[in-house]
């Protein structure tokens, strides 16, 4: 009997079967019970309806290092009939697609409303199978199809011997639905109870004592929150002083727009759904010019469309935080699949040379803390600051101690903004040539501080010029900010283990936890590797990185993109040869991917390892954009 350590995967037809609802419910209630949950792969299609969707959730007693591998303990299949996307697999699409991931000795729970499914093969593998006519119960007995999700949740909880008296569930339902009437709460509780009873029945019929897994609440623990990476980023931004946000809807950045729409007004800010990608950033630059801490968010296509504005922000020296929730590119690519393919763009996009800063958080917590740094850096260096998250980090849902947010709150300063008292009538030069490269600025409306700001090359007053020495001085002034940054603000990589003479796995972005778990497992296998995570990617802190990486043997860069964009950057900046573990099929790295890659490279001397995903059991399936 395994307690408080399991991975459950729920699958079904998108928009129809309630996959997300069940995962959300289980994750949230487990979190309330003091358990740690992690749902790191929200596998949905970019068409709204009809494709196969699945969502694995890891539940642990202590915070898990990573989501691990693609194995699962409990499989919940919600289809009740055909998956319109794969009509050849009625009623068992999820089972066919994910059956192989299910561990021997695991559990299979499926909607048997339209009949049972042949599951002998599973039983042979010691898997306990629970048919559950959830939709039938909901429709026939309870007359409300939507409560089928609750039937499933009830069944699952019973399986896990969790919340046997429905205290957690009742409290949750009352919070949600009481204002709509007691009946709704009761209906849902009944549905859950009916689910319980069905599992009960199977257990008795089969003479099983339990399902083999259980969840035990940890009531005394500190308060945990159940939230997504986007939530953490949005909260972080607001507490960092962001009071203007703009975004044009795009997966996976739309939830950030929704978050800001919902919360920014409480804090006196405003949020704008742009009518296109450029209106968004232009409005945000306008707001920044007016004094607001401003942010835009988008994903690859929308970032590509903003390139001209980045150059403007760099040249006109307007602070702006740019969140790029990366998704699988190029072009429209795979909108709902993850990738780390925009680093080269963040570092190099745009014609000509202009200052910019590129940061990449590696965890939900860093989404909260690092975004504060992003705003401070934007303010100080008056340039675009790219914040590279990715679909995985944007959509991860996990439990986080509430304390973390309170403790991580920071003081807001706004550097270098002159006010009326600071200004002597004729002395204000918006683009004063300084040693640091940083010039004084004001917010418009300040008496005595009139500015002229332009993306055309300009003199210290901001007036247009092409005078060669002035141009040279002004361009150098702007770029000098990056040297100041390297002296005053660059941060070295996070280093786990001793890199000396060992294989070193270098990563950026959301894959850090996977690298750390691979390190732990390799150690068990007797191989010591170090992990180096780079969060401050540009200006590239050569001094801080090279000294670490040159000790590696070999140096292995792990990235979710085709070409190895960080690896290329390291070669350019450090002149060190790199090996690469690359994955770009839209799925996250699994620990086993890394381990296989390290073996190939270290043992067999391969120059690179390109992860090939298992082939899911699937018929031709198409999606949208």
């Amino acid at each position, binding site marked *: 009997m395994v307690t408080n350590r399991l991975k459950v995967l729920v699958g079904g037809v998108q928009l129809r079967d309630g996959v997300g609802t069940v995962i959300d419910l289980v994750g949230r209630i487990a979190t309330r019970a003091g358990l740690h949950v992690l749902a790191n792969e929200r596998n949905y299609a970019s068409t709204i309806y009809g494709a196969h969707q699945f969502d694995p959730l890891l539940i642990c007693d202590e915070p898990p290092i990573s989501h691990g591998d693609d194995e699962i303990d409990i499989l919940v299949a919600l289809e009740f009939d055909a998956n319109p996307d794969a009509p050849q697999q009625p009623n068992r699409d999820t089972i066919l697609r994910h059956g192989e991931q299910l561990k021997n000795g695991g559990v299979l729970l499926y909607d048997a409303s339209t009949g049972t499914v042949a599951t002998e093969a599973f039983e042979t593998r010691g898997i306990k199978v629970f048919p559950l006519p959830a939709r039938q119960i909901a429709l026939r007995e309870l007359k409300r199809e939507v409560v089928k999700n609750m039937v499933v949740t009830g069944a699952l909880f019973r399986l896990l011997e969790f919340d046997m008296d429905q205290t957690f569930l009742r409290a949750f339902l009352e919070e949600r639905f009481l204002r709509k009437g007691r009946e709704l709460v009761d209906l849902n509780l009944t549905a859950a109870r009916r689910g319980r009873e069905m599992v009960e029945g199977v257990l008795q019929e089969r003479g099983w004592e339990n399902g083999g897994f259980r969840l035990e609440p940890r009531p005394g623990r500190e308060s945990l929150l159940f939230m997504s990476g986007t939530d953490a980023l949005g909260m972080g931004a607001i507490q960092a002083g962001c*009071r203007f946000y703009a975004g044009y809807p795009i997966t996976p950045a739309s939830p950030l727009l929704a978050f800001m729409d919902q919360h920014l007004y409480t804090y006196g800010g405003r949020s*704008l759904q742009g009518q296109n990608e450029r209106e968004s950033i232009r409005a945000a630059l306008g707001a920044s010019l007016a004094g607001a801490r401003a942010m835009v968010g988008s994903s690859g296509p929308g970032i590509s469309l903003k390139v*001209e504005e980045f150059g403007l922000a760099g040249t006109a020296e307007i602070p702006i935080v740019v969140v790029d929730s990366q998704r699988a590119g190029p072009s429209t690519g795979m909108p709902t699949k993850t990738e780390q393919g925009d680093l080269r763009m963040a570092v190099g996009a745009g014609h000509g040379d202009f200052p910019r800063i590129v940061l990449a958080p590696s965890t939900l917590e860093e989404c909260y803390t690092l975004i504060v740094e992003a705003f401070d850096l934007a303010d100080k260096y008056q340039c675009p600051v790219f914040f590279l998250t990715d679909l995985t980090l944007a959509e991860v849902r996990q439990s986080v101690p509430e304390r973390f947010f309170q403790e991580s709150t920071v003081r807001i300063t*706004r550097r270098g903004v002159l006010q009326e008292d600071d200004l002597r009538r004729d002395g204000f030069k918006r683009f004063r040539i300084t040693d640091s490269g940083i010039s004084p600025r004001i917010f418009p409306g300040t008496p005595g501080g009139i500015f002229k700001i332009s993306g*055309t090359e300009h003199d210290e007053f901001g007036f247009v010029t092409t005078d060669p020495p002035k141009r040279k001085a002004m361009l150098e002034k702007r770029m000098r900010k990056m040297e100041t940054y390297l002296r005053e603000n660059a941060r070295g990589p996070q280093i786990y283990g001793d890199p000396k003479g060992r294989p070193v796995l270098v990563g950026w972005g959301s894959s850090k936890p996977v690298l750390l778990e691979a390190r732990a497992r390799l150690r068990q296998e007797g191989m010591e590797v170090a992990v180096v995570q780079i969060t401050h990617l540009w200006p590239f802190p050569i001094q801080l990185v090279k000294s670490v990486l040159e000790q590696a043997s070999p140096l292995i860069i792990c990235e979710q993109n085709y070409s190895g964009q960080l690896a290329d950057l390291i070669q350019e900046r450090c002149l060190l040869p790199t090996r690469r573990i690359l994955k770009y099929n839209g799925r996250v790295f699994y620990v086993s991917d890394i381990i296989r890659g390290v073996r190939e490279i270290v043992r067999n001397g391969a120059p690179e390892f390109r992860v090939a995903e298992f082939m899911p059991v699937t018929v031709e399936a198409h999606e949208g954009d």
Partner: protein
Amino acid sequence: MSTQPAAKAPASKIWEENATPRHRIQWCPGCGDYGVLSALKMALTRLELMPHEVLLIGGIGCSGQIRNYLNGNGFHGTHGGPLAYAVGVKMANPDLRVMALAGDGDTFAIGVENFVHTCRRDPEVTLIVMDNGVYGLTTGQRSPTGGLGQDQPEWSEEDPPPFSPLRLALSAGATFVAQSFSGDPKHAAEVYVEAMEHPGFAFVNDFSPCVTYNKFNTYEWFKERVEPVPADHDPSDLEAAWELLADFRRRGRSPLGVIYRNPRKRKIYKRVPIWPQELENIDLEPMLRGFR
């Protein structure tokens, strides 16, 4: 050589400080934009604004240079963008006086999406388009309003007829639509004042001849074709505005004055917090609540 109307117009010196003493005007002698500059100075003077209270957002083009020929905060971003920047500025700080000063190429060609969407959004921003039918700064290619008054036997994708900015504005939902002529800066100044007093987005299309590249739509050409909006026109009536335009079109004339003015009910916002003391010690609770 043509004269520079700007030199003759009465205008408070305050709008020249910080600007033209440092920055020579580099329009061609006789350029219509001088008239706009002159009218703008009059209007700003009339409204008794202080330069630090205004933000002039210039488009890219000969016309956009005007931001540097006037005192006041000036901004100049990418081509076609003035209105989108303006929307953000006004949302963040409704207290600033924001003007977008741009060309017909900037506004109706590369920037037409911002024109259409800004008409809908209705920020309290005044847009003055210096409409000369050409891309002056890139040496005279035809703009979307180019070819005004010229007929052609056949049209093609690469050679389409001009369109009417006034109609476009009306159909996109603009709440203030007017037209002026830089050959008559006094009248233009009156129109600008009305535009700047309008609580919402105010669009003024100013016929501002390009003496170098548009040899067809000259001052003389315009003088023969412009006509004031009739005194009995009710600018608050949308259908009347449409009819006025239809009538002028039929007669081959262009109206000068306020064609439509109908303020919307607006939600009032304050400046967003920007200073550290406004941003500190915020209560996370409203956000945290949702995650428990």
